[in-house]
């Protein structure tokens, strides 16, 4: 793993302004992303996990400048790319790609697979028209599809095949960095493993960096170098995958891990889960202080008043929680 940061995300904020009520009479703000800071290292797979609506996709979209950031910086190659306009952004677009959850709706139904994969090649002038056919065939081969698929339409492909096409399309740009937004969540179990293997192979072959957004912790544990846990628009914890799964510090991470079922009947039957009570609060009016305090089993008075600081509690282990902070100041360090 290269230790150089590929991208630095500093105090990134994304608010959506929406209108509520039957006639849109009430203006409101969705706090989709509030003040998140982290690095993405060159060549790593960084995963983001968390419950639906916690801001994982918004993070991916905002750091690719597909949503305009409300505040904050995304430093890539020495430039803050979130303040660039579409035109200035174009050279970076090629290097920064995204693969979406639903491979059906992200392919133009009127374009053949060949056209869809060839388009970015021609647009970014990565090959001449004469070389195009070979280029498409190579890309399709990279993602494990036979060349005859070039003349097919998306509706003639299965879900897994479409996701392969979406990956081929991202690869066509010869990117450095790919956001995989729930890229395997919509696929069948037996096909998921194929796509995970494909992503791993491509990472090795082309030295790619992934931001892997997912909610399946078993998959995340399998492919990540580091994992970030999000809750209601904020990062709760971010560290290496070993550290996160063996030594979770944040109460929310602990609850999340305990909710994941294991494929082992005896273990599952005897297991005592720490089940969280209640639902995720609305991002329209997030709780004050620590956003997890309404469901946190170890919440203290300070939690509802003061936003816990995002700090490096242990080397390479970031967490935002008052209890963790106090635990450390009380004992002079947590066991590693």
């Amino acid at each position, binding site marked *: 793993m290269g230790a150089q940061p590929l991208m630095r995300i500093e105090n990134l904020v994304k608010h959506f302004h929406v209108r509520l009520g039957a006639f849109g009479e009430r203006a409101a703000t969705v706090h989709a992303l509030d003040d998140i800071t982290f690095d993405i290292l060159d060549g790593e797979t960084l995963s983001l996990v968390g419950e639906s609506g916690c801001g994982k996709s918004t993070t991916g979209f905002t750091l690719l400048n597909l949503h305009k950031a409300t505040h904050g910086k995304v430093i890539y190659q020495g430039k803050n790319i979130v303040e660039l306009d579409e035109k200035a952004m174009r050279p970076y677009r090629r290097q920064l790609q995204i693969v979406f959850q639903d491979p059906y709706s992200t392919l133009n139904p009127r374009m053949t697979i060949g056209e869809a994969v060839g388009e970015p090649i021609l647009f970014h002038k990565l090959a001449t028209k004469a070389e195009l056919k070979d280029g498409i065939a190579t890309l399709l081969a990279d993602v494990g599809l036979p060349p005859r698929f070039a003349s097919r339409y998306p509706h003639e492909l299965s879900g897994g095949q479409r996701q392969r096409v979406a990956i081929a399309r991202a690869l066509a740009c010869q990117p450095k960095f790919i956001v995989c937004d729930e890229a395997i969540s919509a696929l069948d179990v037996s096909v998921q493993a194929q796509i995970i293997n494909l992503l791993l192979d491509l990472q090795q072959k082309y030295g790619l960096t992934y931001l892997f957004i997912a909610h399946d912790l078993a998959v995340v544990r399998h*492919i990540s170098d580091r994992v970030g846990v999000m809750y209601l628009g904020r990062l709760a914890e971010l560290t290496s995958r070993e550290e996160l799964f063996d030594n979770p510090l944040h109460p929310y991470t602990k609850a999340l891990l305990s909710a994941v079922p294991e494929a082992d009947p005896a273990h599952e039957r005897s297991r005592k889960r720490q089940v969280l009570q209640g639902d995720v609060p609305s991002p329209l009016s997030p709780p004050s202080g620590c956003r997890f305090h309404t469901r946190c089993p170890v919440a203290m008075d300070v939690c509802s008043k003061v936003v816990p600081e995002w700090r490096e509690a242990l080397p390479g282990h970031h967490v935002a929680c008052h209890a963790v902070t106090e635990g450390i100041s009380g004992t002079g360090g947590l066991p590693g």
Partner: protein
Amino acid sequence: MTKTNTSERLLDVKGLTIEIETRNGPATIVDGIDLHVNKGETLGVVGESGCGKSLTMLSLMRLLPNKIRVTKGTAHFAGRDLQTMSNSELRKVRGGEVGFVFQDPMTSLNPVMRIGQQLAEPLIYHRGMNKAQARKRAGELLKLVGIPGAEDRLDAYPHELSGGMRQRVMIAIGLACNPQLLIADEPTTALDVTIQAQIVDLVKELRDRLGMSIVWITHDLALIAGLVDRVAVLYAGTVVEDAPVDDLFARPAHPYTQGLLASIPKLSDERASRLSSIGGTPPEPGRRPKGCPFAPRCPLAEAICHDKVPVLESLVSAGAHRVACFVAQRKLEAA
């Protein structure tokens, strides 16, 4: 539990075949499914999307959409034939003796009706309660499924509830008339892991308290590991393996089940090691291969597999463990 005879079977489906009209004539979607649920038993039905899980369950209640028909097979509930019973009798079974929980709680709840009314409806219809009684019972049901402030929530509309709460309401509706059998079609697929854990624990607790049978449909093997007694694995519209849950996880016999279990990432895996995966994709309905439906993807396939269809058989040596695979059957016989 392992020894079954027909009399204690609550639900008994034999050779159920479902076809759909296509432009090329009828195509088989569900091909001779054999399933049964014993009294007090929880059955997990596992299979990938499109393998026919939902249609099988809908067909039991004669709720199939247009152009899709049952062409062969029988289905009995508590000894009564579901296919031939009169409509009025069937209506008593639907929502009365058999409760349903659907996959998507938003689209299966009526968006313009208060949840209290939706809960009261089956009570008034099946139990002959009056409005006041039904409302009181509806409040109890909401409390049963763990909705905080249950009585106040009776007048809420579905969109005012979160996804997890809506699914709890769906479960409450399914349970309204104390059914003998609850059929839950991917009841947690649309939910988050922490909410999913809440729902699984809730259903477990309700089952132990009310003593009903459950059919839990899912594509997630790990999810049902701690919940069910027996698992039926579906592939391309047929049951390929049917075994007690511990047996299935410890000794999966069918190559498809083996592949499925192997493709779940394990705690012990190296980071970024290759997962074992099943090549190819499931056949589309109507394009099922000749012979064993899994043959084109099967690492163990032999000549006979491309020619003949293996039958789901229970082998003496394997007890209640049934499998539809030539190779697995041979191995079990030899053992």
